[in-house]
């Protein structure tokens, strides 16, 4: 079954063609990060406008690269939430229109669920049960997936998302946007010796809190500025990153133990962080667990994962009604 997937919930306008949820025929991504970077974040209306300008062209490109005609598509899938309403509407309207015009079924996909399926595209042997840690600019969720289409949220962030914390700390350190890769790079030049937060108040739970860590960086920078001292940005970046990664690892590996699951997957843009990958790989090896993470181009938002997820949703639940509304705060279920 060939699925056309559309993703437009935030920065990226993306269209892909995927076979049976596992094999990528084409995966076209147009990132708007360059247009956004001068604002230090995603500008929603700009995002919606850009999606609208390029989505037709990208859809044609996805079909061209896959070397197929619209008649060969069996299903149209699109992200319907969570995300920015303007962008969601563009992708969703496009998918519904194609579904009507091509007379193919339509299925709406949850963006967070989509990130899980990025791993299924990259690793053919992967199968549930598993635990998935999704870490991105808008989401920080620890999810237990006992079977296809079944999810239990074990923990989420109580304040800032992990990627958001990276963005905001990068802003405080004057690094620019997006913060994740910039901090990752800068951290390699520093040593993680600065204790930013002493006490992990949520240590007994699977929840996350990154706001206190962000504030600790703000406080330290403020104090140094007042004293006219140099801000050790590389050390701060390294220390901040180390502490984010150690909290993420603590929650994930505790959940693996409790759920007696042998497979752990990472997804979302923060899963591209080099220290995160290294720490998780070492810990997984030590514990005899399988760790999967997607290649870089499938970590960040893309439409192949939406097509893959759409395939599995369609197999299990059938098509979605064309009246399906965009849901900016959609939860996984």
């Amino acid at each position: 079954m060939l699925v056309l997937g559309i993703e437009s919930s935030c920065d990226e306008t993306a269209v892909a063609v995927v076979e049976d949820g596992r094999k990528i025929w084409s995966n076209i991504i147009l990132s708007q990060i360059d247009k956004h970077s001068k604002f230090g974040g995603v500008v929603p209306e700009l995002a919606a406008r850009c999606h609208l300008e390029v989505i037709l062209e990208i859809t044609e490109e996805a079909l061209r690269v896959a070397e197929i005609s619209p008649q060969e598509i069996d299903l149209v899938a699109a992200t319907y939430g969570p995300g920015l309403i303007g962008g969601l509407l563009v992708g969703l309207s496009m998918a519904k229109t194609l579904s009507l015009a091509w007379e193919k079924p339509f299925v709406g996909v949850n963006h967070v669920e989509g990130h899980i399926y990025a791993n299924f595209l990259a690793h053919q042997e992967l199968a549930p049960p598993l635990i998935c840690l999704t870490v991105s600019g808008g989401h920080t969720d620890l999810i237990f997936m006992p079977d296809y289409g079944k999810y239990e949220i074990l923990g989420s962030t109580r304040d800032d998302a992990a990627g958001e914390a990276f963005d905001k700390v990068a802003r405080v350190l004057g690094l620019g946007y997006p913060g994740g890769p910039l901090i990752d790079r800068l951290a390699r030049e520093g040593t993680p010796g600065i204790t930013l937060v002493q006490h992990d108040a949520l240590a007994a739970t699977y929840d996350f809190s990154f706001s206190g860590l962000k504030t600790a960086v703000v406080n330290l920078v403020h104090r140094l500025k007042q004293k006219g001292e140099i801000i050790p940005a590389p050390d701060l970046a390294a220390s901040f990153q180390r502490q984010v990664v150690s909290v993420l690892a603590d929650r994930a590996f505790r959940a693996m133990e409790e759920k007696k699951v042998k497979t752990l997957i990472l997804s979302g843009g923060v899963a591209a962080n080099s220290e995160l990958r290294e720490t998780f790989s070492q810990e997984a090896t030590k514990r005899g667990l399988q760790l999967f993470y997607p290649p870089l181009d499938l970590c960040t938002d893309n439409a192949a994962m939406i097509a893959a997820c759409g395939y599995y949703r369609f197999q299990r639940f059938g098509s979605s009604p064309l009246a399906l509304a965009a849901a900016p705060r959609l939860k996984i279920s």
Partner: protein
Amino acid sequence: MEKEHDDKLRIWSESPADTEELGVILGSILQPGDLFFLSGELGSGKTLMVRGVTAGLKSEELATSPTFALVHRYEGELPLYHLDLYRLSEPGELEPLALEELMEEEAAIMIEWGDSAKEILSSSYMEIEFLRGENDNQRIITFCPFGEHYRRINRLIYEKITYEIRNFK
């Protein structure tokens, strides 16, 4: 805590817990249509106060950062909209958020980084300023009322805090 001659109310929060508790008090007196703007640098406690407000409204879900999604809605004794407009660069980008429509709902609204929205919404609102105090944990939180309704809210908060003063260090 001090009341100023121009009806501003200034509160010294000595910890994140104080800021959140102040939010709980605020949540317990919110009314439909109340409009608050929260200003202050990153990490000054804006979202934390709103988290307290959702607790005060007895919302099942407590507030998290709206930076990514721009708008969050919470269902408590009163619906609450929590917005963060930092990522907007010009007033034209407010349009898709349909703020005027939110204003017509029987809900309270709290907006972070909302300067661009002030003029178009209402001349009557509360501005809450978060300033860094003398040490890392201290914040000086000032409630600046614009309009009689918000001056009354300040008197209510003052009474509530005086009553619960033992809970404040």
